[in-house]
């Protein structure tokens, strides 16, 4: 995969160069249009990728830290968990989603004690709500439907609203 990366880069640069057609339609006569700079940069990207591909052909691609099979599983789980966290936050609201994420992510990182998981999830979320909602007035997602009602009730109970 690492060896194929420069070729993917060249393909991407060419695709974006093609996508830049038509950008210059608005430019004033005799002036450099809005496509000039991106084309220059894309050409640079293509040349750099080509140089990297040639370099990779001459000497093997240096991958410094090969992943162990177990680590791959953890990596997939960690990425999936982060994606799930971002995905469900608008629905569940920041408070619920974050508390759940903290507990599960901590478990994934190797924390097993239920008390540690619970304390970090609850106290951590409450502290973040106070800091960012109460003090910084950041409108973190409240969730939808009944989850929004829950978040609002929680904010009132905590004295944030």
């Amino acid at each position, binding site marked *: 995969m690492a060896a194929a990366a420069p070729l993917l880069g060249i393909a991407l640069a060419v695709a974006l160069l093609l996508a830049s057609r038509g950008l210059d339609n608005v430019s004033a006569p005799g*002036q450099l249009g809005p496509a000039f700079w991106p084309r220059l940069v894309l050409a640079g990207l293509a040349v750099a990728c080509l140089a990297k591909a040639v370099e990779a052909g001459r000497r093997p691609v240096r991958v410094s830290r090969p992943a162990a099979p177990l680590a791959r599983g*953890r990596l997939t789980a960690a*990425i999936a968990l982060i994606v799930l966290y971002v995905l469900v*936050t608008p629905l569940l609201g920041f408070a619920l989603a974050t508390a759940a994420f903290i507990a599960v992510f901590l478990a994934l990182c190797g*924390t097993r004690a239920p008390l540690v998981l619970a304390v970090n999830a609850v106290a951590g979320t409450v502290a973040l709500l106070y800091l960012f909602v109460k003090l910084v007035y*950041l409108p973190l997602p409240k969730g939808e439907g009944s989850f929004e009602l829950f978040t609002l009730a929680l904010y009132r109970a905590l004295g944030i609203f």
Partner: protein
Amino acid sequence: MGEIFGGLGLGFLNAFQPLNFLMIVTGLVIGIVAGALPGITMLNAIVLVLPFTYLMGIVPALLLMIGVYGGGVFGGSITGILFNIPGDPMNVPTTWEGYQLNRQGKTQYALGLAIMSSAFGGLVSALFLAFLAPPFAKIALGFSTVEFFAVVVFGLASVSVLGQHSMAAAFVSLFAGMVLGAVGTEAQYGVERFVFDVPFLKTGIDFVTVLIGLFAIGEVLDQIVGTAEPAAENPDTRAVPRLPLLDLWPLRWPLIRGTAVGIAVGGLAGAGATVSSFVSYGLEKQISKEPEMFGKGHAGGLVASESSVNGSTGGAMIHLLTLGIPGSAATAVMMGAFLIHGIQPGPLLFTKQPEQVYTIFAGMILANLLMIALGFLAALSFATLMKVPAPILNTFIVVFCFIGAFALRNDMADVWLTMLFGVAGFFMRRWDLPIPPLVMGVILGPMAEQYFLTSMVANQNDLTIFVTRPVSATILAIAVAMLVWPVLKRMRARRNA
């Protein structure tokens, strides 16, 4: 000269008034904390305190903002050194070296160097501002976007020093970053570029999402998978950060060079702290006798970039106070504070309101001295977080990244982008694609485009303007030399082998 000393004396008397002094301290604390939180930049903090200044007099208002400005440009270095999360783009070069020093068990040393070099850079630039602002401003007036473009190219050229194993890989990374920087609505014609009907891409990709994702999330994933290089046993984290006064002596030249670059880039080019930190770092590696140690915890690199960041603050203020032209976004907000209070910054300010001008100078000097103590306390507070077990720390770093990205525009799209760049950062580490050039490309690419196109419009598309103006030609020649020199060196080494 006597007039300046007299003015400064009066300025210090004013700055030591309880309310004014309190404003400097408050501003520093707000600035350091805001700078340290990813997603909340120093600029955000200055904008946030602006409404509070409406009810104050102009002097306490400006001292508050100066405190936020000075503290904010330093604050991001603390989290950069401790957690590999630079609070602001300007703290990125400090993070490259500081975090490596931290991993080697030299946390105190790195934090101490950052505090002292920040304070030194800021102090010298404040003194420079007090004594040499008017003549310096005259020189700065002769500069145009042509010179600004040359300075940014110089910053981009320092990519040649960032490719540890492969120059080609560094350039792939740099151009990829510049492509990301070109996404969104173009400023000159209002044309959407590479948006593909995705609404949130219309406003472009905020570099903070790239910064947080690549550095913080990528690092967390690296640690979870267990492929991150193990940290050294770190006795430092138990103790308080030390102030390495004596340690600074062997680093005096990087310190002086970094400060000079900060003043020059901030004052002459008005390019701000971010450009000056990249330029200073790149220059330092070119000059260094051990360039191969950069990126592995080089104290000189840290000191040079950190002193240039704070060194640029005085330089940027020269533009504002003497010309009435804000040299950076932060000084533009400060100009707003001046105007709100009915004062027009510019040449007449020195004759009409000298007392206020010298109070500002004194406030800047005082703020940089106070920053040693407050920076020390802040570093101490953040350093205690190092005792938190890694699983807890990693989990909360992800949550902070979520909040930091969301805070940019209150939009979940920025959170998605951050997480996407986090995964990209993880794979870039594994494939040995250097991350710093990509970050440089995203930050400096749009600046380069803006200055280049403005220069072209102003000079009838005459490309020779970049080499016919002496300052621009000199800077560009040095930039080209920076790019060519490592290639020549490698070719010579290969021939000798």
